[in-house]
C-alpha cells in the first residue's frame, strides 16, 4: 500500500505539459464559442434555477435574477458553462479512474482534524462563491480566460486572487503545512 501511495503522488502529468494541454482546451473553447472556460457561471445558473423553482415570488423580485435572465435567454440550465461543467465532472472522473485515484475521502493535513478541514472548506467555498459573483467570474472565467484574451480586468482579478492568498497564507499555514 505504501508503495502505491508514493506512486500516486508522482503519477501526475508534467505541469508544463498539463499547462499546454489546458491552454489548448481554452483555445478550443474560444475557437468554438468565442468565449473562454468558466466554472462559477454554471453555479450561478443552478442557483437561479433553484431559487426560481423554490421561491418563485422572491426570484421575480430579485434584481440578481432579473439581470441574469436579461443576459441569458431561455432555460438557465441550457447554457454553455453548465454543459462544460458537466463535462468537467466526467473528464475528472475518467482521469481519476485511469490513474487509480477514485477514493471517497476527506483530504487534509495530518495536523488538523477532518472536521476542521470541512469547516474551512465550507467557509472558503462561501467566500469564493461570493467573490466570483462580485468579480464576474472565478479563477477559470475571469483570471485564466481573461488573461488569454488580454483582458485588463482578468489580469487585475488574477493578481488580487493570488496576491491575497499569498498575504493570508501565513495565518492559515496550520491547515496546509
Amino acid at each position, binding site marked *: 500500500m505504501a508503495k502505491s501511495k508514493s506512486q500516486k503522488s508522482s503519477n501526475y502529468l508534467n505541469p508544463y505539459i498539463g499547462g499546454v494541454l489546458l491552454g489548448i482546451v481554452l483555445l478550443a473553447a474560444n475557437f468554438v464559442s468565442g468565449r473562454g472556460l468558466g466554472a462559477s457561471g454554471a453555479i450561478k445558473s443552478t442557483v437561479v434555477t433553484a431559487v426560481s423553482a423554490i421561491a418563485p415570488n422572491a426570484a421575480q423580485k430579485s434584481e440578481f435574477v432579473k439581470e441574469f435572465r436579461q443576459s441569458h435567454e431561455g432555460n438557465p440550465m441550457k447554457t454553455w458553462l453548465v454543459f462544460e461543467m458537466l463535462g468537467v465532472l466526467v473528464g475528472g472522473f475518467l482521469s481519476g479512474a485511469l490513474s487509480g485515484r477514485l477514493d471517497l475521502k476527506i483530504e487534509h493535513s495530518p495536523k488538523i482534524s477532518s472536521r476542521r478541514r470541512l469547516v474551512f*472548506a465550507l467557509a472558503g467555498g462561501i467566500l469564493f462563491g461570493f467573490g466570483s459573483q462580485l468579480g464576474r467570474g472565478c479563477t477559470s472565467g475571469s483570471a485564466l480566460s481573461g488573461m488569454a484574451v488580454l483582458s485588463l480586468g482578468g489580469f487585475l482579478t488574477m493578481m488580487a486572487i493570488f496576491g491575497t492568498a499569498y498575504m493570508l497564507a501565513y495565518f492559515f499555514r496550520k491547515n496546509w503545512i
Partner: protein
Amino acid sequence: MGPLSVNGIISENTNLFLAFIIGIGFGFVLEQSGFSSSRKLAGVFYGYDTVVLKVFFTAAITAMLGLLFFSLFGWVDLNLVYVNPTYLTSAVLGGIIMGAGFIMGGYCPGTSFCGASIGKIDAIVFIGGLFLGVLIFGIGYRWWSELYMAGFLGSPKVSEALGLSDGIFALLLILVALAMFWVAEWAEKKFPRAVY
C-alpha cells in the same frame, strides 16, 4: 472562420455539445495535473508544490499565443472573441475575497468540481459553500450592486492600458512567466515537499 458559434457555422445545440466535450478535456487535464487535490493546490502558497503556477501560466500563455496565431492565420476573428469587461472596484475586491476563499478552502470553483469528481468530500463541501456564497450575493444584491457596477472601463486590453502592442505584451508575459517558473523550481527544492 472562428469563433464557430458566433459566425453561425455550428448550431446552438452543436455548440452546447462541444461545450460538454471541451469540459471533459478541461476536467481531464485538471485532474491529470493534480488539481483534484487541495493540498497540492495550496502548495503554491507555501512553495512546497508550485504546480498551480506552472500549469496556470503555461495555459494562459498557450491560449494567448494560440489566439494571436489563429488571428494571424485568419482562422479566428479576435473582434468576435469575448474580452471580459473591466469594472475596477469589483475586479479587485472580488479577487481579494476569492483569494481568501482559496487559502481557506484550498480549491477554486473549477478545481473543486474536479476534486468532487474523484470523491473528495472536502471538495463537495466546498461546492456546497460556493452555492451558498452565490445565493448570499444574490439575496443581498441591492446592498452591493453599486460596488458591483463601480469603476466601469469598458473592455480594455491590458496591452492597451500599458500602451504596448499585443505582441510585445505577449513577449513580456512569457519572459515574466519564465522567471516565475525558475523561482518555482527553486522554491520546490528549498521547501520540503509534504507527503500526501
